[in-house]
């Protein structure tokens, strides 16, 4: 594959996360508006200054990005809706960056958010995809827990991963979350608690699962010139990839689409995995984080458990990972779960991460994964961010 054109000249600014709520009586519109407002305020901009708008959400129905323009009083000349769950941020960034480079839009707001009513997770599950409806729900209706349990089971069988290996990841993320005042989980987690947790869908237990909640995440994409003119801290986009429905003939998912594009990613970035100061993986379940660490070149297939065994995954460690606590400890606010790592990475490389700041962080890898349409996640994305201007 030829190396794609550079993303030079593009700035990612004004990262904003709403605090999450376990259950909300408000709508996705409410949460998206809150994050958009927060991001615009951080940049000192008004809604009228936007000429591009992009949204990722599961609970907007019957609205889409179109309905939101009228609802929120926006008048963009570039509009995009990205229904790609956990892969949304990487995909969003690629599109927005190209639009800014081409001059189709000058300031684009990228927002992801969802609400979570008492019954909305069940309702979301029951209408997720046709293949899931035909071939997955009738078999125990375990939702994503059961789907990922099967992948985890096979991963443990083939690569000898243990529950402790997954636990190490979850325990470290909880330690990170305790430094993030917005994280849903507020109590420390020990390995003992992890191992003794209530089984959900064997081999997955309670702390392997994310907590569905309500919330939203946002950032802005503009030119570096504009970011500098506004005197805003910003991140650069060094490389980005996406892939859908990769390895369709694998009988079960042990690798994602990253494997097809990983060389392009590092080539375009002009960097190697070892140069990353922090890594944000999509962590709906710990096995998926391991898969990303392997498929994005940090270690060989099946070796993530061993690779991580002698690493410290906390913000002060030698392999800072999911520094805000990720979804496992921060909560999963629907499609915002696809943005949580991206928004945190922008904060990190611009020196705005507060209590979870990795000292001197300049290079970050952000990876996304989404949409279990039937038996596997179909969408993968990844991006390398570098420091443009610090706060």
């Amino acid at each position, binding site marked *: 594959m030829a190396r794609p054109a550079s993303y030079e000249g593009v700035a990612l600014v004004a990262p904003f996360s709403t605090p999450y709520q376990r259950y909300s009586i408000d709508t996705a519109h409410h949460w998206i508006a809150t994050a958009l407002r927060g991001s615009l305020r951080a940049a000192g901009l008004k809604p009228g200054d936007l000429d591009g708008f992009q949204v990722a959400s599961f609970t907007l129905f019957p609205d889409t990005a179109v309905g939101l323009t009228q609802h929120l009083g926006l008048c963009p000349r570039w509009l995009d809706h990205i229904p790609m769950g956990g892969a949304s941020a990487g995909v969003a960034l690629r599109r927005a960056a190209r639009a800014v480079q081409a001059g189709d839009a000058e300031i684009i707001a990228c927002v992801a958010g969802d609400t979570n009513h008492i019954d909305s997770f069940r309702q979301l599950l029951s209408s997720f995809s*046709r293949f899931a409806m035909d*071939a997955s729900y009738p*078999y125990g209706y375990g939702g994503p*827990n059961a789907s990922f349990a099967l992948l985890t089971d096979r991963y443990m069988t083939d690569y000898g991963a243990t529950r402790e290996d997954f636990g190490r990841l979850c325990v470290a993320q909880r330690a990170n979350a305790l430094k993030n005042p917005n994280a849903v989980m507020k109590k420390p987690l020990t390995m003992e608690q992890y191992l003794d947790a209530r089984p*959900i*869908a*064997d081999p997955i237990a309670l702390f392997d699962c994310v907590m569905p909640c309500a919330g939203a995440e946002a950032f802005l994409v503009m030119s570096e010139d504009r970011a500098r003119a506004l005197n805003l801290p910003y991140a650069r986009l060094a490389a980005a990839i996406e892939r859908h429905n990769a390895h369709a003939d694998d009988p*079960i998912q042990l690798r994602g689409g990253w494997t097809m594009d990983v060389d392009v990613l590092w080539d375009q970035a002009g960097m190697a995995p070892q140069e990353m100061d922090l890594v944000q993986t999509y962590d709906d379940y710990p096995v998926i984080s391991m898969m990303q660490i392997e498929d994005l070149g940090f270690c060989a297939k099946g070796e993530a458990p061993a690779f991580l065994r002698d690493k410290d995954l906390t913000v002060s460690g030698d392999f800072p990972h999911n520094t805000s606590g990720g979804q496992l400890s921060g909560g999963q606010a629907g499609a915002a779960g696809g943005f949580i790592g991206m928004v945190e990475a922008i904060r990190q490389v611009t020196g705005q991460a507060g209590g979870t700041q990795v000292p001197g962080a300049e290079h970050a890898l952000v990876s996304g994964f989404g949409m279990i349409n039937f038996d596997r996640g179909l969408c993968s994305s990844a991006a390398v961010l570098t420091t443009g201007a610090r706060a």
Partner: protein
Amino acid sequence: MTHPLSPPPKKDPQKRSVSPTRPPEVRSRAALHLSAAAAEGRFALQRCADCGKVQYPPRDACSACLSTDLPWQDMAPGGTLIAETTVRTSPRLYFRERMPWRAGTVQLDAGPTVLAHIHGDVARHARVRVTARLDQAGQGVLVALPETDTPNMEDDPLMRALSADPKHRRVLITDARSAQAPALARALQKAGAAIIFAGEPESWRPYPQRAELEALGVQILPMDVTDTASVQKLAGEIGGKTDILINTARFLRPGGVLDRGDTGFARDELEVNYLGLMRLAQAFGPAMCARASDGVNAAAAWVNLLSVGALSNARPFGAYSASQAGAYSLSQSLRAEFRPSGLRVMNVFFGPTEEDDWYQPLPPPRVTAAALARSVVDGLQRGLEDVWCGDIAQDLRDRFRRDPKVLEREMTLGGEGA
């Protein structure tokens, strides 16, 4: 090895019956073909007519060559269990009430990977046999069974939910006078039925099978399907403990329209074959629906014995065929009405029978009562919805499916004589 089921204890009348809940019913139109095959006990998937790729989940276009010609074909059942989970929590009530639930990923020898229910006797990473069964929503689901039969495997709770096995169940044969009643009673008894009731019209009139039924221990109780009061009276007595109802009541006479001088026989045919079914359903249906999730001996199935002439009118039994067509159509309404409870309606289609005198002038082949009884029990054990018993029924089914108009033309030929 599956632990053999014990007979359930007597029900505590002070306890509430468990309300029927169901697994998800909604499917795409393409996926309904899997249910349609499962209704007859077949495991079928789509195979691309252009490139041969087997598809799963069901599709509208081939995932290899984009062809939209994806005929359904029976598949080889072999496969390997490559991953599994035991689900312990679910937002769906039906599964919540039945946790823990075993499910797994099976790589089929035929190509695709499927998600399936896993029988308790299947070992980790074992070879399996995949079959398609109807679940309590009436939809086809895939089940991975041990490669070879294991002792009591039909007693696994999963298999009980995917069948209407007569074992430990109480069965009502609606007409003891039916020529098929003794063979049915024998087959049900052999299959482990707990109690067999039989309704008896016109008790004052002697008939040869009565002694045979009594010898089998069948409880013979008065009921005439043409008499609403008698049907309601028996439903009041045993409706709450009827787990399977097999409607054997039939009024059979030869003749079409012109062969008969009046509508007398036609009225009897409708009274028994059509309105009799309706009376039975109105009296027994509600209680059976309410008990469709009631443990080991939950109400499980409603069985109609139908002449295959219900599909396409079969002379010289023209008027009788019309009453059977009515009963068949009514059985489809019953299916829809029973569906929310999970109670199954099984139709057993058959051609001329050996034991009914009125078929005496017809040439063979004919269906024996023993063969019909075997089909009924086998259908219940496999949870089928449509059973085709005997060569004539299967022949008519195939011709009907090939082209119903051609079949009608063949069935209505006037003959060369005139």
